[in-house]
């Protein structure tokens, strides 16, 4: 390890550090020494609000929260956690976008009038305890207030002086839906320092120069692997607990197509139009101007204060209001937040924090309204939920080959029907255990989902796979599945996606490309970097052509050895990828290939700002049962078949690519 001694003795950390819980006081003190007011969570009036923090004792030690539509209660957790709850009634906008801001002073002296801008009282602040949804909300405000040619100077002055100590969520409320809005629960960017609370202290990571400087002044020791795994697993459990309450695919269009839905009138019977949802919302930004004058109006201050589209006067002009009925105002709010916000700002106006649900006095749940007004259109035909009948290792369901296509000299794609109906619920990246009598069953990635079948792309590398490749139309084989987890395609919504793979590695990613093409507008730039040994070894050549020319995917190909007909690139795919121009700030990566290749790719991605939790790989291991019972595929604390095969680099930590694991 390189040493860069600070304060004479402590070597600088390279990876995540560990901070003892009591030493969080040091962090607070350092921020205050730097001239910052530290704003963080504290218990006040029966809730965890954000307010000025000077000591560790101000934080809600051992306090948890219970949230439901229209209901918030604190409870004792029975532990010492300082961040064992989720977001409360306060949003950080209270400091970056205060409720009342004086804008202009106007004076009148005889016939002379004068207008003077009021000075902003922006201060150096540190936000302690911002969650993933909070950071996403600040990002939304950044776009709204500074993302166009018209910049709000007050916001800019305040926002520029904020140092962010983010905290990973280690718990979820019933009202959370960041997963659906692709904003959390994982904190991925937009912070200076990131804490994950563990027993006894915090895993500490940094994502900025200022964050690194602060880290180097903290009493840290390197975090152990167990601590790193523990942190990742805790956040992963939060994701699992939240689920996907509001399927976001196509939500904008679905919602805007329902302007005449009868539900608008029904929800307006319940809605009090009090405006609490909008002021609790961390992204709502509407304001109104008021004048405060002396008795004769010769000295007047115009101020901006939070307003709400739910108030009757909000859309009033002489003669009446443009949204006179409560149903109009509810519809305005919901369609803006989840629909037209995309058109105006290129992102969702909702970050899934759930504040509007908890703090609605009458408990209207925006998730229920969205699902009722704009129900999700299933990507596969609606079928009853079916568990794989052949989940157990001794039970295979037969499938029939209806087509066999030779992709390359050694690789064949089989189209199968008559399969277990469970495959209809399958997802990109999953696999099947495939068996022929007399041969050991093998895990094979599903390379295409069809309404009544699947495709498997198999490279004839050994006797079993060669026998599978040789199957003729009408012959049968045994299937169990679908098994394993999937590519987190929902996390790629609204982001750029890069897919890096080689050879047969394209097979498990092919359903991802199908899903993207089917719903292209949900995603930003999509790049596919694909390499093969020779031009003849490229899989799915027709589709590659179509994706690149018609379907809006940037396809880059390379081969190790070119023939005379090849006019494209030669070299390994990581080089191709290295040299391309791309920006990782808003990128999710899916990588499939040999582990050395995936490691090299991950390093390149990290160098361009794609954090470890946004890089996903699919792992190959010896699998026999496919459900975590046989033990063959164990990798650290994971069974690759059951917990994977798709993992983020952050999840894997330093076991990824390590020899002998």
């Amino acid at each position, binding site marked *: 390890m390189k040493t860069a001694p600070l304060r004479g003795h402590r070597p600088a950390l390279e990876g995540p550090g560990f901070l003892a819980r009591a030493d969080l006081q040091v962090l607070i003190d350092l921020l205050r020494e730097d001239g910052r007011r530290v704003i963080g969570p504290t218990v006040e009036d029966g809730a965890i609000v954000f307010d000025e923090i000077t000591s560790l004792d101000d934080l809600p030690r051992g306090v948890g929260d219970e949230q439901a539509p229209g209901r918030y209660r604190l409870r004792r957790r029975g532990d010492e956690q300082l961040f064992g709850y989720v977001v409360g009634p306060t949003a950080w906008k209270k400091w970056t976008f205060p*409720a009342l801001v004086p804008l202009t002073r106007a004076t009148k002296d005889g016939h002379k009038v004068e207008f003077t801008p009021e000075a902003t009282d922006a201060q150096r602040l540190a936000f302690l305890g911002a969650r993933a949804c909070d950071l996403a909300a600040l990002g939304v405000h950044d776009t709204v207030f500074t993302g166009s040619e018209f910049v709000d100077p007050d916001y800019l002055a305040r926002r520029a002086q904020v140092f962010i100590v983010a905290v990973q969520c280690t718990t979820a409320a019933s009202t959370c839906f960041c997963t659906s809005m692709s904003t959390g629960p994982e904190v991925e960017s937009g912070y200076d320092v990131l804490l994950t609370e563990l027993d006894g202290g915090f895993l500490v990571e940094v994502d900025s120069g200022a964050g690194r400087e602060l880290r180097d002044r903290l009493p840290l020791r390197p975090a152990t692997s167990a601590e790193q795994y523990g942190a990742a697993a805790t956040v992963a459990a939060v994701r699992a607990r939240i689920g996907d309450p509001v399927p976001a695919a196509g939500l904008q269009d679905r919602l805007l197509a329902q302007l005449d839905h009868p539900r608008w009138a029904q929800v307006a019977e319940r809605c009090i139009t009090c405006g609490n949802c909008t002021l609790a919302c961390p992204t709502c930004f509407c304001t109104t101007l008021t004048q405060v004058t002396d008795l004769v109006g010769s000295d007047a201050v115009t101020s901006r204060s939070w307003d709400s589209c739910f108030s009757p006067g909000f859309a009033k002009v002489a003669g009446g209001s443009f949204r006179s009925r409560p149903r109009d105002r509810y519809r305005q709010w919901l369609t803006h937040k989840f629909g037209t916000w995309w058109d105006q700002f290129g992102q969702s106006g909702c970050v899934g924090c759930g504040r509007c649900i908890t703090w*609605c006095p009458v408990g209207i749940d925006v998730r229920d309204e969205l699902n009722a007004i704009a129900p999700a259109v299933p990507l596969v035909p609606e079928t009853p939920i079916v568990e794989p009948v052949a989940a157990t290792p001794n039970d295979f369901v037969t499938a029939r080959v209806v087509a066999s296509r030779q992709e390359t000299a050694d690789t064949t794609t089989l189209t199968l029907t008559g399969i277990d109906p469970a495959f209809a619920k399958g997802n990109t990246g999953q696999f099947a255990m495939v068996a022929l009598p007399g041969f050991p069953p093998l895990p094979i990635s599903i390379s295409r989902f069809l309404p009544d079948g699947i495709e498997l792309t198999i490279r004839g590398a050994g006797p079993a796979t060669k026998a599978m490749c040789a199957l003729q139309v009408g012959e049968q084989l045994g299937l169990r599945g679908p098994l394993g987890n999937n590519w987190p395609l929902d996390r790629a919504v609204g982001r750029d996606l890069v897919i890096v793979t080689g050879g047969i590695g394209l097979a498990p990613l092919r359903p991802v490309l199908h899903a993207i093409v089917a719903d292209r507008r949900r995603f930003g730039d999509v790049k596919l970097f694909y390499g093969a040994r020779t031009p003849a070894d490229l899989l799915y050549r027709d589709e590659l052509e179509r994706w690149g020319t018609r379907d809006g995917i940037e396809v880059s190909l390379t081969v190790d050895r070119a023939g005379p007909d090849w006019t494209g690139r030669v070299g390994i795919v990581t080089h191709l990828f290295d040299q391309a121009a791309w920006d990782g700030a808003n990128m999710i990566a899916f990588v499939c290939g040999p582990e050395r290749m995936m490691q090299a790719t991950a390093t390149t991605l990290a160098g361009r700002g794609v954090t470890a939790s946004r890089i996903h790989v699919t792992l190959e291991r010896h699998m026999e049962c496919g459900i975590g019972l046989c033990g063959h595929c164990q990798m650290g604390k994971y069974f690759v078949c059951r917990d994977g095969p798709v993992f983020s680099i952050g999840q894997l930590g330093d076991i990824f690519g390590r020899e002998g694991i």
Partner: protein
Amino acid sequence: MASHAPVAARPRVGVVKFASCDGCQLTLLDLEDELLSVVDHFEIVDFPEASSTRSAGPYDVLFVEGSVSEPAHLERIVELRRRTRTLVTIGACATAGGIQALRNWGDHDAFRSGVYAHPEFIHSLARSTPIAEHVTVDAELRGCPIDPGQLVELLTALTTGRRPQLRDEAVCMECKRLGVVCVMVSKGIPCLGQVTQTGCGAICPRFGRGCYGCFGPREQANAAGLTRHLQMAGDRPREEVGRLFAGFTAYSEPFRSMVTELGGVRTGRTGPAGDTTTTTGGKA
């Protein structure tokens, strides 16, 4: 109404009361910082709470406190309106009928004979009603009592000739701007803030209490929606919910309908008295 000719001198201001406790008038006297400036800009010609000087008008601005509650009030308010250019009602009594309007759901004769030894000397109407039920009102300041900030805003608007900036929005908006934690969500305390017009600075929630609606219903107040929620989600008996609305502004719609529907006033009656304004009306 008189013509709106420009006022050359200081506007002549009167302050009068009907059935009320005088608390709103006191708010005017309590404007300590602004009081001298108010006197500089307005000529106070009639203000019994402050001065023995009397005037019979005319008034450029007349502040009217209190509800119409006696037979003599009926003629007096009409007469005052004739002598006034801008008539401003102040407080829950003048704008909504006040707490005394709870008798509108009761048996007026029974009240009189139950309370007074000689009810024949008591000249009161069966219903206590807001000023606007009798004459045209130009502006109103809500609340029990009125808010000094809103009063200054109204005075300022009168001197500068602009529309007073009295927000028509829920009390909740002020709670949220001030960072007050919602008492209904966090403590289960029933609160009328959602259906009540703002202006008080959310004073009750700031001290951990539910709003009891003294500023009266705001525009399009969904009192029925709140009632359904409190009854169903809050599991509260209907009379308890009815009593929430049976306060200082109970006689303003839609609070009035809620009180009638839910039985928030314990009188044995099922509804407010009829429209009669005689002393004998309103038998159950």
